[in-house]
C-alpha cells in the first residue's frame, strides 16, 4: 500500500482537486484506491456526492472505537472508495494530542487496510498542526501544490528542512506548480525553470482552468466529464510522475 498526501500550509492551492483527480486516475489504472478526506470543510467528500458524516466523528476513529473500515463509502467509480470528512475533524489535533505517539497515529490507523487497498490518498486541511505532522509521517509521497511565486519556493524549502529532521522513514516530496496562469510571464518562467533545477519539483504543471473549477459544479473528477481536456491531460501526466516517484508496481489484474 502506497500512501500519497496532498499537502500545503496555504489553502486554495489545488490540494483537493489534485487528490480527487489522482485518486480517480489510480483507480482507473486498476489499483484499489482509498481517499481519506481529512479536511473538515469536506470538499473532496462533496465532489464525490457523499454526505460528510462519520458515525462517532473523528473521536471514534482516532480512539479506535470504530474502525476506519466501517466508515468507508463506495464512490460512483470502480475501485475508488472514500473515507468521508466529518465536521468533528476540526478537533483532530486535540484528539491526536491525547493519543499515544500522536505523530504516528494516522499510519497506525491505516495499517489494517493494507490488504484491501493498493493506494491511499490523504487530502489534508491547510495548516501546520499535529494532524499535518502525522500525515507527513504516514505518507510515502507528499504531493505539494505550489503557486508560482518566489515565496512558494521558500515554503518548499522549509518543508524539506522540517522533514529532514524526522527519525526513520521520510516521505518523498513531489512538488508541482498549480494554478498556472499562462498569460503571466512570471508564472511561465518559474514553472519552466524550477523543475530543471530541482528533482523534487515535477515537470508537470497544472494550469488554472475553469474546467477544474467546474468540478465543484459537476461534482465529479475532471476526467469523468471532460476526459479529453487539457486539465485531464495535465492530471494524467502528474499521476504518471507521482506513480513513478512512489515506485508503484503495476496493478494486479482482477
Amino acid at each position, binding site marked *: 500500500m502506497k500512501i500519497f498526501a496532498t499537502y500545503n500550509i496555504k489553502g486554495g492551492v489545488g490540494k483537493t482537486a489534485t487528490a480527487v483527480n489522482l485518486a480517480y486516475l489510480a483507480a482507473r489504472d486498476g489499483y*484499489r484506491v482509498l481517499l481519506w478526506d481529512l479536511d473538515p470543510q469536506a470538499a473532496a467528500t462533496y465532489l*464525490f*456526492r*457523499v*454526505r460528510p458524516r462519520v458515525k462517532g466523528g473523528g473521536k471514534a476513529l482516532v480512539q479506535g472505537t470504530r474502525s476506519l473500515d466501517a*466508515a*468507508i*463509502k*463506495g*464512490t*460512483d467509480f470502480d*475501485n475508488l*472508495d472514500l473515507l468521508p470528512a466529518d465536521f468533528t475533524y476540526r478537533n483532530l489535533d486535540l484528539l491526536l494530542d491525547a493519543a499515544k505517539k500522536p505523530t504516528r497515529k494516522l499510519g497506525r490507523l491505516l495499517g489494517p487496510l493494507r490488504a484491501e487497498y493498493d493506494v491511499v490518498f490523504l487530502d489534508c486541511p491547510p495548516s501546520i498542526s499535529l494532524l499535518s505532522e502525522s500525515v507527513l509521517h504516514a505518507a510515502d509521497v507528499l504531493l505539494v501544490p505550489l503557486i508560482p511565486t518566489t515565496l512558494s519556493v521558500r515554503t518548499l524549502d522549509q518543508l524539506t528542512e522540517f522533514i529532514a529532521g524526522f527519525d526513520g522513514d521520510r516521505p518523498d516530496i513531489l512538488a508541482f506548480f498549480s494554478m498556472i496562469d499562462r498569460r503571466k510571464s512570471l508564472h511561465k518562467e518559474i514553472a519552466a525553470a524550477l523543475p530543471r533545477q530541482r528533482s523534487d519539483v515535477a515537470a508537470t504543471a497544472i494550469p488554472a482552468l475553469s474546467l477544474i473549477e467546474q468540478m465543484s459544479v459537476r*461534482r465529479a473528477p475532471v476526467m469523468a466529464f471532460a476526459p479529453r481536456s487539457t486539465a485531464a491531460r495535465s492530471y494524467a501526466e502528474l499521476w504518471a510522475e507521482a506513480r513513478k516517484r512512489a515506485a508503484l508496481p503495476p496493478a494486479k*489484474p482482477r
Partner: protein
Amino acid sequence: MRTALREFVLDDSGMPESDDYLVALGPRLRWRSDGRARTVRRAWLDTFDWRLYRAGLTLELTSGRGPGQLTLTGRDGAVVAAQQAGAAGGRPRWPGLLAALPVGPLRERLRPVVGVRALMPVARAASTTRDLRVLNSDDKTVARVTVDRMSVSYPARAVLPPRLTVTALRGYQAQADRLADILAAARGVAAGAAGALEAALAAAGRQPGDYTGKISVRLAPQAPAVVAVAAVLEQLLGTLQANVGGVLRDIDSEFLHDLRIAVRRTRSTLKLAGDVLPDGIASRFRPEFKWLGDLTTPTRDLDVYLLGFDAMAAGLAAAAPAELRPFHDYLAGRRAAEQRQLARGLRSTRFSKLTAEWREALSAAAATRKARPAAAQLAGRRIRKAHRRVLADGGAITAASAPERMHELRKRCKDLRYLLEIFGSLYDPGEHWQAVRELKSLQDCLGEFQDTEVQREEIRTFAAQMMDRRTAPAATLLAMGEVAAGLAIRQRQARSEFAGRFRDFASPASQQRILAMTETAAS
C-alpha cells in the same frame, strides 16, 4: 467496491424489453443506465458425476472480448478463485483434465474435488447484461442493478426470464436493502432462488446432480421381488448406457470404471437373485454380460496402473523415478491399443443387441404378476446366506492357508457387498452404512492382498514383453523389479492384517447387526 447480492427474476409475461419494473422504485429513488449492454458467452463446467455441484461449488467460464475467465464460486455466490482460462499452451479445450489448467490457486482448489475426472460443459448460454445505477437525492449511486437476459444453448435451447441482481455500494447497504425490498414487492418480480446455472439447467429441462454411479432406486419392502430386482437392473442398464459415450470418446478413466461397476453389479444380481426373474432370463444373459465385463478388463487394468503410476514412481527407494519412464510409455501404448479394441466392442452389433434385448427382457420381467416372494424377504434370505458364507470361509483361514483361500473369500465378500448395495434402500440408512463399512474394511485388506499379487505377476509379464521388443533399458527393468519387491512387501502387510480385520467383521455385534437389519425390513 461493491458488496452483498440479492437476485430477482422477472415474470416472463412482464415487460420483456423495458425497464418498467424500476418505475416501481417510486419517486425517491432514481436510476440511470450505465454504459451499453454487453454480451458474454458462458459455460459451466463440472465432472460427469457433478462433483463440483455436490461440493457446493460452481465453475463458470465466461468469454466476451479477450481471453476467457474461469471463476469458481461457493454456495453463497462468493468467489473462491478465479483466473484467465488460457493456459501456457493455448486455450484449454473441454472436456479436459485439470492438468490442462494453468498452475494456480484455482487448480489447487479444484484438485481434491475433481480428482481424476475431466471437466466438461454441463450448460452453455449467452448473457446480455445491462447495468443501471440507482441514485439518491444527491445523484450519488447507492446500488447497481444488473439486468441479465440469458439464452441457453446447451443442453437444450431455452430463453430465460430476465434476472436482476442488486449490488450495494460499500457503505450503502441499508439503501440497497430498501431498494431490494421495493423490488421484491413489485408486480412481476420474484425472488431469484436458483443460481444462474440451476436456472439455465432448469430451463433446458435438466437438473444438476442428475447422474450418480450409485444405485439409487427406492425399493418397497413388500413389493414383489421380481419387480424390485428388475428395477435395480434397469437402473444399472441406465448407468451402463450413460457411460458408453464417455468411454468411446475416452474423456476420463471413470466412465469405464462406472460402466464396469454397472456390469459387475448386473452380473452379481443375476447370479445372486436372478432366479426370481422369469423365463430363464438370467441364464440367457449371464454369458453376454460376462463377455461385456471381459471386454472392459484390459483397458481398466492398464488405467489402474497409469493412475497409480506417479505414486508408484515416488515410492522407489533405489531407482530414480525417471528410470520407470519407458515402462510408463509401454503401458500407455498398450492402453491405447486396448482402448481401440474396447471401442470396437462397444460399437458392435453384439453390444447394441445385448442392451436392446436386455431392456426388453427387463420390461417383461417387471410386468410379471408374481407377488411372492416380497423384496425384503428375498433380500434378507440372500444377504444372510452370503453373510454366513463369508463367516464360514473366513473363519477357516489360518496363517498357513493358501493364497487361493483368500481369493475365494474376496469373491464371497463381493457377493455380500453387491447384495447389500442392490437392496440397500430397504434398510435403515445408519445400520446399512455401518454394515457396509465393516465389510469394506475387510474387503480393502483382501483386495490389497490379491491386487498386489496380480500386479506383481503382471509386472513380470510386462518386463518379459518389453525385453522381447527390446524397449526396456536395464535400469528400467531394475526399477520394475523394485516396484515388484514393494508390492510383495505390501502383500505381506495385508496378509498380516487379515486376522484382525476378520475378527472385527465377525464380532457378535456386527453379526447381530446384519441379522437385525434384514429381519426388521422383512417383518
